[in-house]
């Protein structure tokens, strides 16, 4: 699992470079946090489903999924702000 996470963030680094997005430590921290919460949301929802609480698991993932989607959109705006500033 650790190797997959390293691979993921290494890949992200190349994606961000190609998109012209410059990163610093707090932007990376925000990105890691967002991805961690996404993992916890999926893990939590599926844990409830494993407990035979299927509807609770789905509601859990939908509720936190919507919040994460909005937070992800906000994060994307923050990350791309520097790119927009540079190209402008």
């Amino acid at each position: 699992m650790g190797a997959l996470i390293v691979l993921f963030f290494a890949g992200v680094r190349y994606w961000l470079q190609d998109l012209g997005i410059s990163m610093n430590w707090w932007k990376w921290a925000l990105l890691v946090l967002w991805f961690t919460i996404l993992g916890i949301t999926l893990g939590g929802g599926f844990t409830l489903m494993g407990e035979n609480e299927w509807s609770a698991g789905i509601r859990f993932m939908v509720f936190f999924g919507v919040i994460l989607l909005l937070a992800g959109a906000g994060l994307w705006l923050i990350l791309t702000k520097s790119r927009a500033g540079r190209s402008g």
Partner: protein
Amino acid sequence: MKYSGLAGGALTLAGASTAGFMAGKNKDSHTGFGRAPYGKDQFFNRKPFLVEKPTYRVVGKPSRIQYLDHLFRRNSELRRYIFSGAGGDFQKVRNEGTEALPEPLKNYYEKNPSAFEEFFRAMDKAEEQRANWEKYKDKYMLAEAWSTAHASVLSGSGSFPQEPRESPEISDFEGVNSSRLKLKSPKHGSGLIKKITHSFGATLAGITAIKEEWVYQGSLRGAGRGDFKVPDHWKYAVVFAVPHEWESFYANPTYGTSYDAYTMLRFISSKVETFIKEIGYPARSHVPPTSYDLVLPPLGIDAGLGEQGRNGILITPELGANTRLAAVTTNMPLEPDKPVDLGILRFCNKCKICAEECPGKAISFEDSPGKEIRGFKRWSIDQDKCYTVWNSVATRRPSGCRICLAVCPYSRKNNWIHTVAREADPRDPTGITSSAMLAMQKNFFNYPGGDQYLPPPEGENKTYGNPPDWLITEEWFDF
């Protein structure tokens, strides 16, 4: 690299989902039914939450509970009168009212007239269900067989342990080893007995000094009826707990029985009693639902196992409300454990799920324990309404109802998601964690609601959790 990274991210999330699913499904995370007989199921670290005084509120002079305050004893006393004094004519006794009852029943029911009427309502429901049983007996054959098997060791000559035949001053000393070694200290005594109790199968174990107010008055096993002093050698109680089998526990009461936990407790307590006698001290087992002289939940609170719940049950961090208790009394030198404040009482103030889901509306909706009962502030539980529900469940004979235990948010598995809640809530003085947990509990989980757990005409025999396949008759038999 870019696409490998994407694949890595997708696999990470898939891994988190699969690990979560497996954690939820894992049967070893059912506390008390796992693989650890060495006390590891008592996994919650209580040390940061130890307090000098228990969290229940003393508001007056504590008094001892009378044996007629106990539903089963009261009902069996009334039944005994109906069969021996009134020729088995229930209707006659009902019509004659409380006036015609012998003492002390008369005194009790004159003070609690609704309990008298509720008893006959319960009997009506029992008769109704006996008539309906023909309709249900094939469908619920396995559930009934399972419950009956568990109950089989509870009565008659096969009962283990045998009921004491003499007063505690005699029977508790029978078989005590006369050559006793010097115990190093009471602390050693407590440590040893708790380890031994766990080795006999107890999920939780604690020690407390016995307070007079937790000993029933008016009846004592082996001694009969009358006013009794608390025996001098009842200095300490070893209090221990096991859960009900978790999968049947979450299902409709038709699929469950209290006896699955109580029979385990009978074996454990008999062994603890024998062990204590073998090392030279008197001992007596106390196991509900029939063979005990002590009120067990407050003893569990004093022993630091958990706190009082709105439903009248001891709620513990490991088992939630799925905590069934027994005790052994002794004068072996022991060091009592301290009580704990885990915020359970504060959580119960705002939760109320058990009261909302109770088919008998027997649990109080008050915001905080408001009724003074024998010197303590408590939530009131209407035992008689609860018993009417027992008699309304689709079973061959009344085997109980455990809805208030099953729907309790604390009654959860020992996996990571519930560990987060269990560890975070008692450390949060603001109460935000418990409010957030409760909001999720009420909005994410499905609760059928009150009457719906009962068979027609009251409800549709709905369930909170699905019964396990090994209790579903049609999975194994054609009918």
